[in-house]
C-alpha cells in the first residue's frame, strides 16, 4: 500500500500544479476544468486502488481457507 501513498501524494501535487497552471494562463471557468480533470483522475485512481485492496483481502481469505483445510 506504500505505492498508493506515493500515488496519492503525486495526485495532490498534480492537482496543485493544474490549479497554478490554469491560473497563470488565465483560463476562464478554471474551477470547472480543474474539478473535471481532478475528478476523472481521482475516480480512476480510486477504483484501481479499491481493486488492488479487494484483491489482497480476498486472496488472504482464500489462503486462510487453504490453511484451515490442510
Amino acid at each position, binding site marked *: 500500500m506504500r505505492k498508493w501513498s506515493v500515488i496519492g501524494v503525486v495526485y495532490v501535487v498534480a492537482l496543485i500544479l493544474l490549479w497554478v497552471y*490554469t491560473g497563470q494562463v488565465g*483560463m476562464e471557468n478554471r474551477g*470547472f476544468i480543474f474539478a473535471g480533470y481532478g475528478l476523472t483522475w481521482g475516480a480512476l485512481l480510486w477504483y*484501481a486502488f479499491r481493486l488492488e485492496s479487494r*484483491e489482497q483481502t480476498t486472496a488472504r481469505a482464500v489462503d486462510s*481457507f487453504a490453511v484451515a483445510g490442510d
Partner: protein
Amino acid sequence: MGPKSVTEKLLGILALGAMLVGSYIGLAVVPADAAQGNVQRLMYVHVPAAWLAFLAFFVVFVMSVLYLIQRDERWDNVAAASAEIGVVFTVVTLLLGMMWGKPTWGVFWTWDPRLTTTAILLAIYVGYGALRSFADDAEKRARWSAIVGVIGFANVPIVYMSVTWWRTLHQPPSSPRSVAPDILWTLMLNLAAFTLVYAYLMVRRIRLAKLEGELEKRMAYNA
C-alpha cells in the same frame, strides 16, 4: 493473489502514459474552442468516459448472452467485471457533464432526455450490482444477472439516440467532418487512452472475480 504478468504491467504503464499525454494535450496544447472557450476542454474526458461506459455495457450484453447459451462462469465473471467498470465510467460521465453544464447551460442538472436516460442507465447497472450481491447461489446469480444484462442494454441505444429523438439541451452527436482536426485527434487520443484504462481495469477486475469465486467455493466446502 495471482501474479501480475508482464503484459498486464505493460498495459498498466501504457494506459497511465496515454492518459497523461491525453490530459496534457487536452489541457495545454490544443487551442480553446472558438465558441465555448476553455470549458470545452472537458469534452476530452467527458466523451471518452461516456463511450467507454457504452462499450462496458455492450460487453456485459455480449457476455450475458454467451452465459445464457453456454452456462460458463467465465462469461459471468467478464460481465460482472465490465458492469462494475461501466458504472464507474457512467458516474464520471454524469459528473463531468454537470461540470460542463453549469458554465454552458447555467445549471448543474436538468431533466433533459440525455441526462435523464443516462441517470436511468446508471440506476440499471447499480441495480445489476445489487442483484449480484443479494443472490447467494452462484448459478442463480449468474442467470439472473445475465437476464438483467441483456434487458438493461436496451437503454444504451436510447441514451445515444435521445439527442436525436427528443428536443434537448445536450448537443447532437458530432461527426468527424463537423469537428476541427485539432479537436478530433485530441479526442481520439483520449478515447484510445480511456480504452487502455478500461482494458487494464478489466484484467484486474476479472482476476478479482475469479478469486471471489474460489473463495465462495472454499467457504461452501468448509461449511
